[in-house]
């Protein structure tokens, strides 16, 4: 069965660009190549005006993004107390220290575990829920509103709610598990052995609506004719999903996975509020929590900044790899 035409991309390519580029069912790349080929070089005045118009945006980017990044890199080269105005340049010493720091490697590992499982299940649950909510049934509007609830409530409220539910001495979850005879003794959901699992479950619950919303929006733009054609060809529901739905949503999935990965890897508030970094919280002391602790509880701003820079570098490298591995989806997305 031939793949479905990409209606969205055809729609954004102007007819004249399509003709210049050989009328291929193309994408933005062909369009931009064509535009470059056909255009004349702008004059100096035009160049100046162009620069002038993008200057505010450039200044904003420089001051709000590049400066903090550059300052963090600079801080990471210092031995600096977090609030006492005393600092000493030590080059890469903070990075060398972290290389041999057991806490750093543990935090990195915990961060990877937390991110991987939360992202995986957010995507699975989000896509599944979006598929269901894309179908027609009575009360669909209400259900669509309700499922967004976890994403809309403040993190602190969500965490308090979950801690209350999961408490091992008076929590509702244990109450029902015991009442139904599923367990003999209450489970210490917030204890050292289960706190990672609890935080992952809580995070999936809190953030899957974002995936749901994004996928649902894309699902609603898939032309019904594609499904009808597939049905005429005798495609089962599973084949319709794999051959029609999945190719249509892969662009948005690419973006959603990228965003969620960045957000979960740097997630601080949920993880911190669940454990506050000590006691059982030590078992969910991910990299952002460790960076926070180094900066604002150990008061070592240099080491905290070095951790932030390492996180930034990990994300940059991962993003580049991700784009390389999924080049096609990146173009669509």
């Amino acid at each position, binding site marked *: 069965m031939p793949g479905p035409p990409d209606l969205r991309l055809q729609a954004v390519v102007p007819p004249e660009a399509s003709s210049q580029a050989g009328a291929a069912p193309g994408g933005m790349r062909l369009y931009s190549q064509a535009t470059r080929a056909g255009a004349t070089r702008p004059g100096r005045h035009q160049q100046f005006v162009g620069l002038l118009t993008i200057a505010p945006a450039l200044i904003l980017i420089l001051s709000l993004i590049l400066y903090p990044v550059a300052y963090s890199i600079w801080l990471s080269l210092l031995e600096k107390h977090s609030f006492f105005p005393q600092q000493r340049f030590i080059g890469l010493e903070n990075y060398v220290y972290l290389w041999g720091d057991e806490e750093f490697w543990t935090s990195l590992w915990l961060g990877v575990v937390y991110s991987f499982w939360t992202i995986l299940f957010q995507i699975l649950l989000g896509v599944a829920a979006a598929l269901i909510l894309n179908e027609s049934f009575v009360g669909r509007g209400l259900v669509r509103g309700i499922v967004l609830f976890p994403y809309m409530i403040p993190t602190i409220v969500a965490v308090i709610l979950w801690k209350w539910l999961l408490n091992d001495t*008076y929590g509702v979850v244990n109450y029902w598990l015991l009442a139904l005879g599923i367990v003999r*003794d209450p489970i210490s959901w*917030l*204890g*050292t052995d289960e706190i990672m699992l609890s935080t992952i479950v809580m995070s999936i619950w809190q953030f899957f609506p974002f995936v749901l919303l994004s996928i649902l929006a894309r699902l609603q733009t898939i032309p019904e004719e594609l499904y009808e054609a597939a049905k005429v060809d005798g495609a089962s529901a599973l084949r319709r999903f794999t051959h029609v739905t999945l190719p249509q949503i892969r662009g948005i999935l690419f973006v959603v996975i990228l965003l969620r990965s960045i957000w979960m890897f740097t997630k601080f508030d949920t993880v911190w509020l669940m454990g506050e970094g000590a*006691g*059982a919280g*030590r078992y969910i002391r991910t990299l952002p929590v460790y960076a926070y602790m180094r900066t604002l509880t150990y008061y070592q701003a240099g080491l905290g900044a070095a951790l932030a820079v390492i996180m930034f570098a990990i994300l940059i490298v991962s993003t580049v790899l991700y784009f390389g591995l999924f080049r096609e989806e990146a173009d669509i997305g």
Partner: protein
Amino acid sequence: MRRGAGIAFLAIVLTWATWAWGGEKKEVRIWHTETEPQSVAAFQQIINDFEKLHADITVKQEALAWGDLEAKLTAALAAGAPPDASHGQAVTCASFYAKGLLRDQEDIAAAIGRDNIWEAVRRQCLHDGKYYGIPHSAATSLLIYRKDVFRQKGLKPPETWDEFIKVAEAMMERDASGRVTRYGLSLPGVGLFINIAVGELTKANGGRLFDLKTGRPTFTEKQVVEVLDFYKKLSATVLPPGWLGHGYLDTFANLATGKAAMLYQGYGRGTGYIEKYSPKEMADPEHFGVMVKPHGPSGKETAAQIDAEPWMIFKNARHPEEAAAFLKFFFKEENYIKYLHTVPIHLLPTLKSVRVNPAYQANETVRKWKEWQDMQYRYFETAQAKPTLIVEWDDLRLPFGLEILGSGIVPDMVTDAVKGMPSAQAAAKAQARAEELITKLGHKRW
């Protein structure tokens, strides 16, 4: 004509702006840790009365959770925007004093009477003979127990840690299937509270956490290792399995609802929780009592933790002088008593004159829970109570207490031990981390 009108308009705007700027009230920001609604309301009443007398000053209070205070304070300091005055732990005050961040409070001490400040809490933030912090109130940690169960089982007050475990085991309750329905003890697993407990247990075991001469940590000394052994035993016998995930309020919920028989880190404010959450027929001192904490195998006498945050005033804040004026007003007896009465069994007076003031004594809750107050006075008067992480008062001269408190090294040491690491090994690991931190902070003297 139009030009003239424009100039006149500009002049009006400038005049108004100058007046508005000049006439702006001075806003004094106060952070404190008394978050209970009635305390916030009483504090606001004091603020309102103060503002009536000082038309040019407005005071904004912010009540912060105890465990969050240090991190928020240091974040504010790092941002260059500290509050004008704030509560803080004694080690925090010592650290900030060492860094030259605090305004001295000699004028406040003079206004309330230097000799009127209770000796037991004077040294909370007294450096080089000057007050840099005067405690807003005084309290100590308490060993709270279910008196009815204790009597019913015919138990005797434990004097040593081993006896304590036996008593706690005896107070546990199981159902027909052998499932625990009441644990012997409840402890908070939050970092701050583990720091507090390790400090007071070490003192109760005749030990120390730092060498006073060099500042070197002494976590590998026998007395500290025995503290870790004690934690291991408690965890294996009488604590709920998930105790490391329990917050401070969880422990009170456990006690008040009958899920635990004792709290080692209870406080006077617990009477409020008991009155609120326990069954009515039980919410009294006949069911919930306090007893002297036991001592460790290497110790001879007990110890408790002083909970008496000194007020700190930041030199580089916007309005330190106005903050000082407010604190003088706060400590005026008629105002101060209103504040103390909001949590009567926890907020004991810092001022000696208030303690004997009939207006202070005329309080129903104080009379009802007198046993709880008396136990705190006992710890204070026998000098068995010290601030968080402080075993001897001179420990406050060490300038890195705040960093050790915040770092999580001590709670990690306990967690390691409880999770199965041999106590000596957990102590050695924490020792190495603490030494490294102190060295990096530039305070190494060994």
